[in-house]
């Protein structure tokens, strides 16, 4: 097998994995703090993709630029969703949370079907089919840009949690809910902020995904499942783990497709999931409970 083929596929896998990681990061942030599993995660990403398509169609806005208003909008929506709908379910049994978010996901899918129809949509930007050629290595421009944006967004999120007072307060809520209440933190507001941040992450991921994927209303559920796999592999609640999990999944799909069989490549991320659950159930970078 030619070495340049292996290198090209590996690079593509890593770049795609970084965007997957950003998508899963939102899920990890939400679960790590709010302890709610967002089963509508993939659907939220799909809505963000449609938002990017709509902004491109109306204003010829590049998805990179569209990510800013879309993320801001999703932050607000995520905040309102948590504060208005999800908050009462935090203390309820997990199956209630599950049913709530699945219902939200179904409503989202059908809403998109009504609004946009079943046809695949995409953006047609000037550099969409371009690539850089370095000898026999080809770097797909949209994927490189998307990966850089994913890295920048993740770095911004890390810095927010590490350095800002609000970020520290959110971490305090995640570490010790009772302690946070005792010291007077507005936990409900912080939970809503966290959900907003998670939603903003998935919005950026969606704006990046539209650069190399066509969007249909039925896209969401497969990406919800993928986000879960990534988060479980990386470690539930671990931000670094989500990114690492994304890259691992992107890479494993690419290399499995190359060395074994392309039509069975998605099988390998499930295989990786089983291995992690068997031998390291807390995930690669997760903490043991």
């Amino acid at each position, binding site marked *: *097998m*030619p070495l340049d*083929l292996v290198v*090209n*596929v590996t690079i*593509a896998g890593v770049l*795609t994995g970084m965007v997957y990681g950003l998508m899963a990061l939102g899920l990890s942030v939400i679960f790590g703090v709010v302890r709610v599993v967002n089963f509508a995660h993939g659907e939220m990403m799909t809505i963000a993709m449609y938002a990017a398509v709509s902004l491109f169609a109306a204003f010829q806005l590049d998805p990179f630029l569209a990510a800013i208003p879309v993320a801001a909008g999703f932050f607000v929506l995520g905040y309102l969703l948590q504060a208005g709908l999800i908050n009462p379910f935090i203390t309820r049994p997990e199956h209630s949370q599950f049913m709530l978010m699945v219902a939200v996901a179904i409503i989202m899918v059908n809403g998109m*079907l009504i609004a946009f129809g*079943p*046809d*695949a949509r*995409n953006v*047609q930007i000037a550099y*969409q*089919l*371009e*690539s850089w*050629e370095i000898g026999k290595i*080809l770097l*797909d421009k949209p994927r490189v840009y998307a990966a850089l944006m994913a890295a920048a967004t993740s770095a911004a999120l890390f810095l927010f949690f590490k350095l800002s007072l609000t970020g520290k307060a959110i971490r305090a809520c995640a570490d010790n809910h009772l302690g946070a209440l005792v010291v007077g933190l507005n936990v409900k507001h912080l939970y809503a902020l966290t959900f907003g941040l998670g939603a903003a992450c998935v919005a950026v991921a969606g704006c990046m995904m539209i650069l*190399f*994927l*066509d969007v*249909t209303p*039925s*896209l969401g559920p497969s990406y919800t499942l993928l986000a879960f796999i990534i988060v479980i592999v990386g470690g539930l609640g671990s931000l670094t783990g989500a990114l690492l999990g994304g890259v691992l999944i992107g890479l494993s*799909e*690419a290399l499995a*497709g*190359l060395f074994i*069989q*392309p*039509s069975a*490549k*998605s099988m390998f991320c499930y295989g990786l999931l089983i291995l992690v659950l068997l031998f390291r159930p807390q995930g690669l970078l997760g903490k043991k409970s």
Partner: protein
Amino acid sequence: MNRRDFNKAAAAVAAATALSPLNRAFAQAQKLKVGVLLPRSGFQGLIGQSCQKGADLAPGVIKQMLGVDIELMSADTETNVDTARTRAERLIQEGANVLVGPFDSGAALAIAQVAEQRGVPFVVNIAAAPQLTEQGYKYVFRNFPTAIDLTVNGLALIGDLFRATNVAPRTAVFMHVNDTFGQAMQKGIGATLPRLTQLPFKIVDTIAYDPAAKDLTVEVSKAKAANADFLLLVCRLNDAIILRREMVKQRWFPMGVVSPGSPGMYEEQFSKALGPIANYCISNAPWYNPKTNMTKVVKAAFDKANPREKFVFHGTNVVYTYESILIAADAFKRAKSTDPKALTEAIRQTNITDRTVLGGPLKFNAKGQVEGNLSACTQNLNGEPRVVLPESAAEAKPVFPVPDYKKA
């Protein structure tokens, strides 16, 4: 009233009562309920909707031609085999006299089982898996070439293409969707190609891929690495779009992209989504005959119902779906009954010569399969598929190798 008058009156009432079931039956038999199963959502949604246009125009055209009343009962299979089975059951429960559809081979196999169990005739509009008419089903009929027929016709047209353009590629890389249809085509090509010694090329690699895949980077990388002269492709619509984009991104410019018999590249959405890079892709596919009266009638009805659509992008889907309903209506007219056995027997005796489809008369063999439906070689030129072969039906000359061909 005397006894004679009373007896006369009673006889008249009795006669009226005795005749009324016949009247009811005749009234009931005036209309044929056709259950139309198509994937109007899911990843085959666009093609399913295209087929639906053929179904929707059928009642009006058939009423004019045959004087038969058709009531359509449409159901969405959602590109899902289980859903197809469930919807077929429901249509039968709701009174469908005949089922038509469903575009997809996997769904067709599921619906065939239902039709056979329930004893309701099922006319397949588009589905190529050979096993559909090889399992001894009594109620299943197909007016579409099998994967073997598609393969033989499609490969023969490839030979004609090379002769017409005076080009002799030596190698091909074969990519195909990994579903019932794609695997049937792969087996057909594997069995047929070695026997077609007049074809100058051999397949150097075969790559199967998931038709629902959102990313085909790995698959295209592998195909490019095979260094073949041209790409032989069995695809569907969305995957064809993703694949063609990926070919350009990876700067893979073979002599051409040729489909021996699959949907996708001749569809409108393919040209719309890809713009100029959709040009020169070749599909050897079952096609309509633009010169027959029936095609002109169907085209006129299509244009009237869909003023913003172009018939050329929907032709195959529309005519095959229309003909499947025509088969049912023609049988109903001859059987004068909606009784399933009578209808099925009438379908078996079908002989329609004025057709929309390129090929011979519409007659079923003992297995319920129409033989003699032909393929045309169409090439996307200026954003529309044009027939380039056979010469008798050609609208343009074929272009091969394509202008941006770069030898590996």
